[in-house]
């Protein structure tokens, strides 16, 4: 009886995921089939913007001729995620390495819960902090032309990701068998060499999984970017420009769209893309972890 219940609960989880994909996919169907007003060409290829101007990529979904290019949104998402990862991963890994390898036990018992507490800050609070404080600081420090930018959003997002990457990476480092460390030290390696050359590579799959988890969180994160990025859909690689991400676009526009219209389908299509992105990422990460494990198993 209990086994049956557990089985049912487990299966209902899978069913929920499937139903969500089916539902989102169905609403995005006009885009996928290309029989609506917008197809893959309008979403991904340059479109005429204004008479006398070269075609380009623009996100202006409301107007006589809606412009629904995915390019500025994809670029925005990648830009913010990149900033967040570049800042968060080194910090989180360094913190994890220190906590698991060098910190005295007392300090370690204090550090881990405190950093994990960061994860419990609601993202809306982080967004608010970025909007009110971080934005002004970044503008005066880096001399940015505008307060809100991909950089500010990325920095705020880094705060959200650090605890995620830290926790998983720290667990992976701690899980490396004591014998590895003892063997390394016995061979005359310094504690630092042991941590960097033995423990970290041994924990590589877990550390990589931590980074992927952080990446997934960053791509889907909505509230922080909605508040701190300025939400201007600019096609540029500059980090000091305001930027509009895919998740923030869904959040900002879903309440207004005409039910079942082209704009509606496009928003669902964006959701589908986000889903596909994280799925692909998890798959790559899984493959990497399996490969590393096999390699480690083979040489050990």
């Amino acid at each position, binding site marked *: 009886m209990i086994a049956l219940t557990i089985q049912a609960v487990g299966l209902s989880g899978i069913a929920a995921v499937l139903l969500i994909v089916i*539902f989102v996919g169905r*609403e995005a169907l006009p885009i996928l089939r290309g029989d609506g007003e917008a197809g893959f060409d309008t979403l991904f290829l340059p479109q005429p*913007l*204004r008479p006398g101007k070269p075609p380009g990529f*623009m*996100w*202006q*979904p*409301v*107007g*006589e001729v809606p*412009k629904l290019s995915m390019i*500025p949104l994809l670029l925005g998402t990648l830009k913010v995620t990149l900033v967040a990862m570049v800042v968060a991963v080194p910090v989180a890994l360094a913190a994890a390495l220190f906590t698991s390898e060098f910190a005295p036990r007392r300090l370690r018992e204090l550090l881990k819960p405190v950093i994990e507490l960061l994860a419990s800050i609601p993202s809306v609070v982080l967004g608010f902090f970025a909007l009110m404080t971080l*934005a*002004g600081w970044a503008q005066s420090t880096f001399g940015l*032309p*505008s*307060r*809100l930018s991909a950089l500010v959003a990325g920095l705020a997002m880094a705060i959200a990701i650090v605890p995620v990457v830290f926790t998983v990476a720290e667990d992976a480092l701690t899980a490396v068998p004591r014998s590895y460390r003892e063997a390394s030290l016995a061979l005359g390696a310094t504690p630092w060499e042991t941590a960097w050359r033995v423990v970290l590579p041994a924990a590589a799959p877990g550390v990589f999984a931590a980074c992927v988890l952080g990446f997934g969180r960053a791509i889907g994160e909505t509230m922080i970017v*909605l508040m701190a990025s*300025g*939400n*201007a*859909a*600019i*096609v540029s690689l500059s980090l000091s*420009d*305001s930027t*509009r991400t895919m998740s923030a676009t869904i959040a*900002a*526009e*879903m*309440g*207004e769209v*005409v*039910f079942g*219209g082209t704009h509606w389908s496009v928003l669902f299509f964006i959701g589908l893309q986000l889903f596909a992105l994280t799925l692909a990422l998890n798959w790559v990460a899984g493959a990497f972890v399996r490969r590393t494990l096999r390699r480690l198993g083979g040489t050990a």
Partner: protein
Amino acid sequence: MASNLHMKRATGSRMKRLPLVLALSFLAPLAAAAGPLTVKGSDTMVVLTQRWAEEYRKTHPEAKVQVTGGGSGTGLSALINGTTEIALSSRPLKEAEREQLRARHGSTGYQLAVAKDGVTFYVNEKNPLSALTLDQLKRIYVGEVTNWKEVGGPDAPIVLYSRENSSGTYVFVKDQLLGGEDFAAAAQTLPGTAAVVNAVAKERHGIGYGGLGYARGVKALELGVGADVLAPTAENVKSGKYPLSRDLFFYLRSEPRGSAQGFIDFCLSEAGQRLVSQVGYSPVK
């Protein structure tokens, strides 16, 4: 929130649910009449409507009026979905929305102008400019002019602030000022007029727009029209001289009854319209 309802309806594969949801959507107006009067929509009108609700409570202590913002589009979506009694809108109903009202509720809606507003452009208090022409503003907002020195200001890039496209003010500026053209891609979109004012107050080279009653801590630009320079004041809006004037509306699904009727009567009364002037807008009468 509005989208949640859509989603429930859209899961049509669960056919058993559908009659229930439909039944609930018919019940919603009845339930709303018994509970608090819900008013939702335009961020331009939220402050004004809250003042109305406060004053109305003083003479009708039993009345409960619940006011929330979110933008004109959000309010009108809520009206169509039956989750609000009155929608606040700073733009007229779109044809598509009228169609949906007809399809869901069998009426084309009830429109009531309750105040007049002039869309105001704000700049930072440190900005030396005090007036711009409509043409200059248009060129700034479509992205042809990107430096203040091109319109007689300091040599600094213009930081453009706009509103989310669920905003009635966004649609109004797009139609009336830009002649339907698209906003510059560099225009940052903020949720709500208060956010725009706050951003411009902090951003030395910023420019933003919003309703008349919000210009605090920022400089409201005067508009050059021909030889005239018109300040965004209630008088200029009332006389119709101010070019970017517009009506602010209440929308209902059908003619007001019960608690909605009482509240609307108060808003249009002399006392109610006096509040309109106090908040910074222009009365309709």
